[in-house]
């Protein structure tokens, strides 16, 4: 009589595949977020260890006036701590959009400044652009500048993706979102489980 048992379709459906890819995409965004957070914490700590080195580096960019010195010195004092705070925010997944946006803005300011400085160094030393190497004050020591610029472009892309992403795996925001799901105020992906328990409740109008 078991032949009369209904046939179960155990093939993977298109919906399952979309769900799986969606899950992976969201996980990748979280990995990016954590990497970005870790990177900025590392860079921030190195700048805090050597504040004078960082001050000298930003002075070389001529972005800020020497007089009044409050702006230049203030940037050297505040920026590393801001990086660390944003890095921690990304790492733990708290205020992710704000932190990623701040990082993208910082990269937007400093990457062209590094490029302009590299052109000046190239002219001063009469060397090829690909041979230009200096400490850009990025907290990672002296680096080959073309590679640094590529790295910054990559970091900027990561920051933009993180700012736009709904992914909150391994994140405090995700955990809070799961709790808030019942009240229908969370629209972000908030689980690390492979089985989709993603919260997609009513869209929060403030987001």
């Amino acid at each position, binding site marked *: 009589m078991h032949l009369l048992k209904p046939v179960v379709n155990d093939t993977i459906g298109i919906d399952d595949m979309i769900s799986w890819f969606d899950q992976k995409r969201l996980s990748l965004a979280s990995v990016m977020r954590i990497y970005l957070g870790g990177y900025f914490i590392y860079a921030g700590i190195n700048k805090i260890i050597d504040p004078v080195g960082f*001050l000298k580096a930003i002075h070389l960019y001529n972005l800020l006036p*020497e007089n009044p010195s409050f702006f230049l010195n203030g940037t050297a004092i505040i920026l590393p*701590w801001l*990086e660390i705070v944003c890095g921690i925010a990304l790492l733990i997944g708290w205020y992710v*959009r*704000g932190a990623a946006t701040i990082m993208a803005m910082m990269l937007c300011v400093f990457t062209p400044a590094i490029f302009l400085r590299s052109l000046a160094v190239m002219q001063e030393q009469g060397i090829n652009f690909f041979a230009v190497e200096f400490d850009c004050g990025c907290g990672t020591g002296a680096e080959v500048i073309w590679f640094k610029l590529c790295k910054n472009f990559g970091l900027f892309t990561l920051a933009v993706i993180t700012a736009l992403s709904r992914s909150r795996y391994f994140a405090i925001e995700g955990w809070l979102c799961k709790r808030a799901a019942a009240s229908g105020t969370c629209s972000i992906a908030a689980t690390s489980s492979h089985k989709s328990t993603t919260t997609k409740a009513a869209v929060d109008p403030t987001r």
Partner: protein
Amino acid sequence: MIRMLKEIVLLVIVGTTLAVLANAVRANPAIKGHLSWGRNYFKKITLNPSNKNNDMQINMQTSVEKSLKTPSNSLKSQPPIQPAHPEHGFQVIAHKDVVALLDDPNTQAYLNIFVDARNDDAFEKGHIPGAIQADHYQLEMYVDDLMQFAPAADKIVVYCNGGECEDSIFMCQDLLELGIDPSVLFLYEGGWKAWEASSAPIETGR
């Protein structure tokens, strides 16, 4: 959007607060790395080389007379009067003259002093024997040591890393502001790079 702006403002407030507190804590001499909010670390005093040369020659003569009165009478090691540098106006001293100063008995008597304007790490890794460290960016921590010897010195040779390093120029300006006569200030432009590249002796540690 509004929520994102709120997040940005809050993160900036937290970051700034931590930075201000940390910088205040670092003002303690035991914890280094304090930066002043208002001090212009990159201020450049432009000395007038043409006027200064005259004064300097007079002062150098006084300096020579002074050294004649000292027991060593070591005129042979007196660095030649150098023209003031067109950019910063300080006298520069050549590498061979700095090496010669090391053997001068006046150096042992702290009448010739070497001022290392680099940071702690660089100084501890190696410096000219007998050099006094005085980091321009943390001057308040070194000013007592410096002023113990600098006012009585006949020659003060200031150096930093060499090359593009400007810290030795800033240090010379600090010394001027501390009341040191410009005629006794000598800028060793080759700096640590030139010293290290030569076979000159090196002292490590503090």
